[in-house]
């Protein structure tokens, strides 16, 4: 019998139907893959299973009986353990105390018995074959070790259902192997696991069942992995290949370089990166989560130091001191992957957000600036993007995700940059807005702006990019000219990534 079941679950957010009638059945002693593109509804489903969100329709069943979770603590109390994508450890606490924190919670007046805490922790660390002293603070561990400590923490709750949200993103192949060995052992002991990953080869290696989400619906529900090939999974994930717009191929090989990186190494760990963006060209930078793409963008922008190599903008060496320098002097713009945290000031109006990049240029003597001046500069772009907002005075936080994203692009159009770095532009926005955004980026490139497109969304990459550069483990692995033949392109990209992993 199924340990856990989600039946016909729907979840609506203002303006977005995140999930519509999604079902999922977890069997005991099984590793179940949850697949889907970014924005397909995976994270919403995880949040429902872990009690962060409540479903608007449908129900959750545990051992066949309906349950409702009032919050994350409810879910853990029902032996649903989670290893979150983001760190959930208390950095100054010892490894042992982090693992045992759940057992302490709820007893504020109890004395903490560190002997017992460390003994429990040692047991779970041993289960994981981890050679970590439970007494050292978590802040002294590497990211990978922290990830494994989180797994130990989830296991220590004797979870019957264990959710692993991209658990390998920060792990080396060796650490991944250790983790997989452990997951198989847990499976044989009857634990039911839900494994979320973008790495299909991992899914094929370890999962026995699979549920695929697409646009908030089940593309397939809890079926066996038997007989499913990589291409079948991809087809389930992205649906029909016709999403790819039929734009003619362009050849920019004679255009002058807008941005050229030569032998660039950075403090974040990039080694010997060569990359050229020509005027009017869209170059896609593809890679798995953790490949170092966003990090490269931030180094180009001057947020983190470049330790070797040169960056040239329009043929001239550019010493970029900081982000302000990159924007105002050099002319490089960046649309952040995390628009809520880094791209927009949600509490400010549309006009203030769109104008933020031009204030410095427009400001007159003594920094004098009027709304009218900003409006004149930014309104044409907001109109062209068809941003659906009642007025320019509307707070950005009240707009839908797609419209927010349009505004974070609009502010760069107004700034008139030479190079625009766009990081995961269509995460969490619907298909129609996505198409509008694609047209906009294409148009922008026609006017001569060079665009570096960072995306994990393969169809988006093949729709937009003129050339695709593949990055893995902070190095450039190779480059393919986009022929817009989906199958050939995705195979070519995966081969480039694979070549490294096989080696």
């Amino acid at each position, binding site marked *: 019998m199924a340990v856990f079941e989600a039946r016909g679950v729907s979840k609506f957010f203002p303006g977005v139907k995140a999930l519509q009638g999604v079902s999922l059945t977890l069997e005991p002693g099984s590793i179940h893959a949850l697949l889907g593109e970014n924005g397909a509804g995976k994270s919403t489903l995880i949040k429902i299973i872990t009690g962060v969100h409540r479903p608007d329709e449908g129900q959750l069943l545990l051992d066949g009986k309906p349950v409702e979770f009032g919050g*994350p603590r409810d879910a853990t109390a029902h032996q649903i353990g989670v290893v*979150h994508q983001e760190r*959930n450890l*208390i950095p100054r606490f010892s490894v042992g105390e982090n693992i045992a924190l759940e057992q302490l919670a709820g007893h504020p007046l109890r004395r903490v018995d560190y002997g017992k805490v460390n003994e429990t922790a040692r047991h779970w660390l041993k289960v994981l074959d981890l050679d970590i002293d439970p007494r050292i603070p978590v802040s*002294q561990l590497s990211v990978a070790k922290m990830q494994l400590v989180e797994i130990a923490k989830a296991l220590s709750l004797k979870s019957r259902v264990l959710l692993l949200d991209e658990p390998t993103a920060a792990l080396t192949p060796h650490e991944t192997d250790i983790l997989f060995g452990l997951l198989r052992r847990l499976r044989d002991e009857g634990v039911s696991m839900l494994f979320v990953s973008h790495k299909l080869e991992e899914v094929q290696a370890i999962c026995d069942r699979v549920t695929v989400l697409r646009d908030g619906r089940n593309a397939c529900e809890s079926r066996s992995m038997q007989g499913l090939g990589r291409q079948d999974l991809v087809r389930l994930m992205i649906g029909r290949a016709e999403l790819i717009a039929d734009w003619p191929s362009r050849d920019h090989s004679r255009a002058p370089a807008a941005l050229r990186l030569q032998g660039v190494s950075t403090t974040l760990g990039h080694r010997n990166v060569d990359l050229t963006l020509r005027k009017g060209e869209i170059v896609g930078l593809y890679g798995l989560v953790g490949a170092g793409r966003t990090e490269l963008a931030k180094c180009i922008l001057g947020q983190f130091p470049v330790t070797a190599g040169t960056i040239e903008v329009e043929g001239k060496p550019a010493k970029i001191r900081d982000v302000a320098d990159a924007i105002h002097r050099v002319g490089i713009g960046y649309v952040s992957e995390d628009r809520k945290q880094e791209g927009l000031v949600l509490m400010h109006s549309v006009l203030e957000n769109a104008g933020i990049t031009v204030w410095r240029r427009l400001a007159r003597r003594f920094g004098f600036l009027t709304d009218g001046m900003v409006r004149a500069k930014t309104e044409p772009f907001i109109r062209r993007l068809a941003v659906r907002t009642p007025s320019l005075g509307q707070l950005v936080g009240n707009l839908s995700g797609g419209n927010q994203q349009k505004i974070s692009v609009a502010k760069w159009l107004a700034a008139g940059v030479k190079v625009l770095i766009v990081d995961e532009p269509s995460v969490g926005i619907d298909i129609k807005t996505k198409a509008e955004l694609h047209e906009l980026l294409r148009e922008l490139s026609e006017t001569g702006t060079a665009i570096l497109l960072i995306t994990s969304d393969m169809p988006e990459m093949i729709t937009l990019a003129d050339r695709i550069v593949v990055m893995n483990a902070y190095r450039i692995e190779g480059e393919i000219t986009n022929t817009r033949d989906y199958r050939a392109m995705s195979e070519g990209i995966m081969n480039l990534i694979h070549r490294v992993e096989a080696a």
Partner: protein
Amino acid sequence: MGPLSRYARTDWFGPLLVTVLAIVIVGAFNPSFLSPLNIQVLLLAISVNALIAFSQMIIIAVGQMNLSVGAIGGLAAISFAGMMQVWGLPAPVAAVLALLIGLGAGMVNGAFIAWTGISAFVITLASLSMFKGINLGITQAQPFYGIPDAVKAFGNTTFIDPLPWLVLPTALVAAGLWFLLNRQALGRFILAVGGNQHAAELSGISVGFTVVAAHAISGLLAALAGIMLVARLQIGQPTIGDDWLILSFAAPVIGGAVLSGGHVSVSATLLGVVIVAIITQALVLFNIDPFLVQVVLGVLILWAVGINRLRELRLRKAATAGA
């Protein structure tokens, strides 16, 4: 790793070094600094100031700040003095009631913060004004003079020369806080919420309860400081607490506390109080303008924050190198 560099990583090592240096230097220039009488005066100041610092430290631990530390202390102080003078209550009863007022005031702060989700800065800014207003309403800005002799004696005599009675409550509080923060679940909750509130919540810790508890402790300690100050000054001054704010932050910060929460040290905070007291005294002994004390205190805070930042960077570097 040698023993020296291991000590250098602790919070108390730097402040201890500064304390010893300060004692040696000031003592060399002015031998009367080490006279029993002067040591007694120093200890009196340290006893009260340590409680003020602890009252803020516990809130820093949970990742917030409490601007109303002085207002709560002042309110408890005049309540203590007023209940003895006006109602004729015996000192121990008045002290317990005044402590309860402090505890209650802290709980009100914590409850509002937990319930509304408004930042502690704003809530305690508002309650600072309210507590101070109540204080002035009760006292009409006039001090209470009717302090019993036993209380005055407690605040000004020694039990073994040169240790004043006031050292005792502070020593007990320091030991209790150390136990709370290092050995008791509630103290660990406070540090966990300060270190990573989200993770603490997902681990089943009730953030609201923890925040209220931290503010309650803070209020209690501020009230105790107020009561002890009444004993020492021998008068229930309505202005008690007005000048506590800077010191309350300075000592924990000198003691390596992380203002974003999750890390404080009782012993190092105590040393922070000692350093501030020594420097204040030294400036008096050397006849330096008392206004300069403020400037020196400011410099000291900046210096301490700088050292902490350096240590953090070095720790992080060591962590990445070891990974």
